[in-house]
């Protein structure tokens, strides 16, 4: 029983990281209607910046994280401006291939700077683990920080979208960018802002992911990126609570699958659940159903 709870906690912790990445994914998808394959690689860049500043230059973790968030925010906006903006009205496939190009680009920049060897990432969390049930159940500091960060981000983001002017502009653009423009919403700056927020979240996710799973390579971001996208689809893409629920569920399924079924098949289980969910509810758990008009 204690074992199960411990796995569950780990699952929620991993799921929180997925949820943070998925929030970025889902916002970008909602607004730009594109699969941003490079999102996972922004996570990796975020983690490397913290690695350089904290482990390399010896700066305090908080400063390192701040620098990482700033770097990723700027990076996200640059990517949008240079690679995606010219393709705003191009075919979906053209945008997808460009995103893949950006993903390769980021991976290879990291490869040039840091090499292919795995770097061991020092956790930025200094909090003591909590011991429950006479020490049988240990909840690490990383887990607590990750889960709390995820909840704060999720609430903050929901509030931002609901109450701020820019947030409502995002909603309007995701609903109908043409109409939003006619209503005086600056579509370009709204999309840029979305990429900025998504990338800032990716930086935080990168730090949290590598604090719990401390091996860092130029390819670290790509699988979590894909899984976070799965989480976003799972919960209903474009929906913020959906991304949160999807992320947590995915993390829990992955950890429980690894513990009780097969460690090698945990990814397969995650993907199988996605398939089942989409077949039962083709737009995800909280997604809206849109019917084509004849």
């Amino acid at each position: 029983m204690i074992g199960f709870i411990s796995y569950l906690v780990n699952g929620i912790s991993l799921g929180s990281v997925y949820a943070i990445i998925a929030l970025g994914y889902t916002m970008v998808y909602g607004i730009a209607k594109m699969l941003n394959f490079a999102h996972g690689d922004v996570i990796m860049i975020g983690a490397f910046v913290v690695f350089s500043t904290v482990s390399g230059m010896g700066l305090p973790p908080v400063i390192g994280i701040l620098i990482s968030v700033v770097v990723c925010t700027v990076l996200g906006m640059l990517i949008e401006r240079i690679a995606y903006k010219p393709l705003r009205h191009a075919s979906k496939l053209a945008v997808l291939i460009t995103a893949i190009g950006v993903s390769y680009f980021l991976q290879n920049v990291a490869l040039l700077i840091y090499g292919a060897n795995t770097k061991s990432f020092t956790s930025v969390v200094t909090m003591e683990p909590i011991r429950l049930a006479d020490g049988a159940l240990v909840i690490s500091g990383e887990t607590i920080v990750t889960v709390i960060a995820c909840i704060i981000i999720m609430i903050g983001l929901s509030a931002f979208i609901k109450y701020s002017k820019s947030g409502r502009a995002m909603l309007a653009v995701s609903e109908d960018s043409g109409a939003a423009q006619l209503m005086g919403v600056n579509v370009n700056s709204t999309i840029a802002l979305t990429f900025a927020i998504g990338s800032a979240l990716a930086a935080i996710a990168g730090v949290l992911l590598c604090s719990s799973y401390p091996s860092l390579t130029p390819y670290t971001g790509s699988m979590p990126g894909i899984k976070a996208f799965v989480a976003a689809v799972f919960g209903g893409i474009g929906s913020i609570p959906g991304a949160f629920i999807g992320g947590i569920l995915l993390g829990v399924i992955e950890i429980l699958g690894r513990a009780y079924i097969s460690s090698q098949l945990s990814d397969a289980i995650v993907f199988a659940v996605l398939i089942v969910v989409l077949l039962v509810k083709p737009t995800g758990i909280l997604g809206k159903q849109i019917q084509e008009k004849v």
Partner: protein
Amino acid sequence: MSKKMKVRNLSKTTKSNLITYGMVIVAYIIVEIFLRAGMVSSLIEGLLVPLCVYVILAVSLNLTVGISGELSLGHAGFMCVGAFAGATFSKCLENVITFGILRFTLAIIVGTLCAALFGILVGIPVLRLKGDYLAIVTLAFGEIIKNVVNVIYLGRDSRGFHISIKDTISLGLEDDGEVIIKGAQGITGTPNDSTFLWGIILILITLFIVINLINSRTGRAIMSIRDNRIAAESIGISVTKYKLLAFSVSAALAGTAGVLYAHNLATLTALPKNFGYNMSITILVFVVLGGIGNIRGSVIAAVVLTLLPELLRALNDYRMLIYAVILIATMIFTSSPGGQAIQERIKLFFERRKTKEA
């Protein structure tokens, strides 16, 4: 005289298709001459069979993405099925059928049929979805196939076949037994039947199947569904049937490529690199850069984009970076309004020069 007439009567598409076949055959002859003359580096020589594999994959994926209009990110999964089915077959019959050509032909058929079967099984649920959802689910299926192959242990002894998903011991083989698939270590010692000539023959067969399919009643039905599903239904074309047909033929041909791939390796393992979504994406890049629905373009793009990183080898660490930049630049140049304007200007420039010359 009558022959000339006939050639003139050939439709534009037929001519264009003949050029595609001719291109492949000419490429084969040129490479063969260079090989005989010893002018091909061992590096390039080692790339010849993989090149054929990529060409087949790109042409077959174009059937799904370009002709049927569905974005699939799981093509490598079907290649994986073909590779393991074909290699298993060859290993089992290595001592039964010693005639290499026959054994390999049968292996190709087995691998192709297995991949086709998976294409149908995956296609039935997947094709109910649309757009990005379909893309992500094909990716999911591809990853599942790769993961599952990694935990399969298959052995054979005098009592028959044994299968397990734990380890080799749990197969409980007798002393005369032989392990064929060793989980993550894959299949070792598949007969090395793949040759460049086989690759070219399989490319030609793939082209024959795909091109003739597109230019037939079935191809028309598939493309009409792509262009307008509701209108296609209104004229009595079964959307499910033709989408599934395109998807499974595409999967089957990916399986063919897999068999060719497997018989070119001493050890066949399912890694993210060869059968993961990254491979599916690489093939998708070939298809998109070669031109959606353009079969000859897929062939050329697969060859050029496979050779490009090798040609850039002199630049060493920077080559993949340059590849990435080329990829982004090409998409912006071909698909953005700004890029298209530049293209128009270049066209105009050349046209003006032509008229001046004349």
